């Protein structure tokens, strides 16, 4: 049995990164920008609220004290209050999360499935027209700013497909009668498709390139030749030996693309007025609602750290050579 040392190490690293992220968050929003979260400069905030902020954030105390208060609050799930609505940030975040997660999941799923398909075919049929198409297609989509692609899709394709281009639900649904679960589901899906498609296409471009390159590297390995020598067909070799080994660098590179996915999600939600975390961030920036921005950023960062950890563990599971 392999020792679990590696797992422990990676978990500790993840925890360490969380600490770094939290601290970075604190430093950015408190120390460097003159207490962006304090409401002191917020014109629309009531005096009561300002006093409340000063007390709960400990603004009259030292930075170190403030940091400890911040950490304590976070541990209890308290992420402060929105400057705009004075509600707890936690409740402000909930709805948008529910909208963003399925949309991003859909888009990324699409990107992975088609990216792997195109990448593998391109590598297998290296040098042929299929390879060139995949390569240039991938490069093309990879170079497109997601917001621009979104606008193009809205301009040319949305009308043709008859899909909605903003919001997450049809405002007329539920007015005349109680909508059934299926109706709601379909409605949500319809609204999710275009943003997910936009996000998915751009990431698909990147993944095609990643998979193709990882596969090309793997197909040059000696055990591929051995497999052919043993009498396995090209197809069987790719499936049994090629893909399984190419998975490893692919996982690493996909984990590195998470930041890009988030960035894409933010701009795509903005274009499609899709009320998710991305749109929330944009609005928070616009309205200078920094506590919300801080919390959303922390949430995103923690998600990425978590996913990286999962990717590390998956790698550990798939590669028997990893041990420490």
């Amino acid at each position, binding site marked *: 049995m392999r020792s679990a040392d590696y797992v422990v190490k990676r978990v500790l690293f993840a925890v360490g990164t969380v600490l770094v992220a939290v601290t970075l968050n604190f430093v950015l929003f408190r120390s460097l920008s003159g207490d962006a979260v304090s409401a002191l400069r917020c014109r629309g905030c009531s005096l009561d609220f300002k006093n409340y902020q000063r007390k709960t954030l400990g603004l009259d105390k030292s930075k170190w004290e403030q940091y400890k208060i911040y950490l304590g609050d976070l541990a209890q799930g308290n992420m402060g209050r929105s400057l705009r609505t004075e509600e707890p940030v936690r409740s402000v975040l909930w709805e948008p999360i529910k909208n963003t997660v399925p949309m991003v999941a859909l888009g990324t799923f699409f990107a992975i499935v088609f990216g792997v398909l195109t990448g593998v075919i391109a590598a297998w049929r290296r040098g042929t027209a299929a390879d060139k198409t995949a390569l240039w297609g991938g490069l093309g989509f990879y170079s497109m700013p997601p917001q621009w692609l979104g606008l193009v899709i809205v301009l040319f394709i949305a009308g043709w497909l008859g899909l909605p281009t903003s919001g997450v639900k049809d405002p007329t649904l539920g007015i005349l009668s109680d909508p059934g679960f299926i109706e709601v589901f379909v409605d949500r899906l319809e609204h999710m498709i275009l943003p997910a498609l936009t996000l998915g296409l751009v990431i698909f471009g990147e993944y095609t390139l990643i998979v193709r390159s990882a596969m090309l590297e793997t197909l040059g*390995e000696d*055990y591929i030749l051995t497999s052919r020598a*043993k009498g396995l067909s090209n197809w069987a070799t790719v499936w049994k030996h090629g893909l399984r*080994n190419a998975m490893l660098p692919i996982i690493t590179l996909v984990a590195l693309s998470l930041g890009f996915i988030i960035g894409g999600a933010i701009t795509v939600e903005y274009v499609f007025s899709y009320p998710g975390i991305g749109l929330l961030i944009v609005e928070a920036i616009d309205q200078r609602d920094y506590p919300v921005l801080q919390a959303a950023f922390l949430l995103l960062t923690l998600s990425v750290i978590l996913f990286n950890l999962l990717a590390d563990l998956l790698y550990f599971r798939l590669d*028997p050579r990893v041990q420490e």
Partner: protein
Amino acid sequence: MSPPLLEVDDLHVWFDLPNGRKLHAVQGVSFAVDAGTRLGMVGESGCGKTTTILALMGLLPPTASVSGRVLLDGVDVLERGEETIAPHRWKDIAMVFQGAMNAFDPVKRIGDQIVEPMELHGHASGAEAASRVSGLLETVGIAPERAKSYPHELSGGMRQRAAIAMALACSPRVLLADEPTTALDVMVQAQVLELLTYLSNELGLALVFVTHDLPIVAQTCTHAAVMYAGRIVEQGPTEALYHETRHPYTRMLWAATPDLDAHEEVLSIPGVPPRLDAELHGCPFAPRCDLAASRCVSERPELRSVGNGHTSACHFSSSVGAAA
């Protein structure tokens, strides 16, 4: 008289070069191997020995063109290329690759990889295959429990022997070994050589052993073929090549080997082999040969008999001194 187990007749291999020209890598190689005999193919790197044996299994890249015949039990398996060779892979003729360190898929267990060709070719499956694997591992001197190990958990020598076990999975009659002992330390080298000799004697395997190390051939092989610039320049029983060397290149190869008993200098062979992307006139070895005369530059020497089953391609074969 029954035909030899493996017979190669006038084999040529050309490779397409990026600049549009062709590289004539193998230039009319012919040899035959009977059951229970071991042929050593010796030469400098780039002389075409690896390409020759890859051709025997049809493992050449698409940039290659071949002509000639490869007769297995008298039947030409090279006749229609991939179509006629594929059915024989691993079942009749198997290969142990150069640097067998990487011949194994790093993410699969050794046992599974040895079973793979068995199941593929309908040789055995399930429990029967598992017991065959144990038997094979024992034959090559590896504890049967190691079937559950991953390639990286085995030492270099063990991996090489495991590769031999894998090559024997479908009981082939011809075993091709490409530099199986390079990069192994002397003790392990001896073990592997002993093993190969044993397999050939006990199982009647015909062995074609490619190496640049002449002493190994002297130690292990019944016959030897010396290759230079894509051609065989001397061929015959190993004893004969040692005691009655009939080609200057062979003699220089012997002389280049450090001899623990003698106190002579170790000679190196000055110069480099000729380019193979152009037509050669005369003897390819002439520029580096100490016996070279004007005839050697203008007239190419053909392989001629100089003894019992012993051929040499040299105008001055009778003047070549013996190695010992």
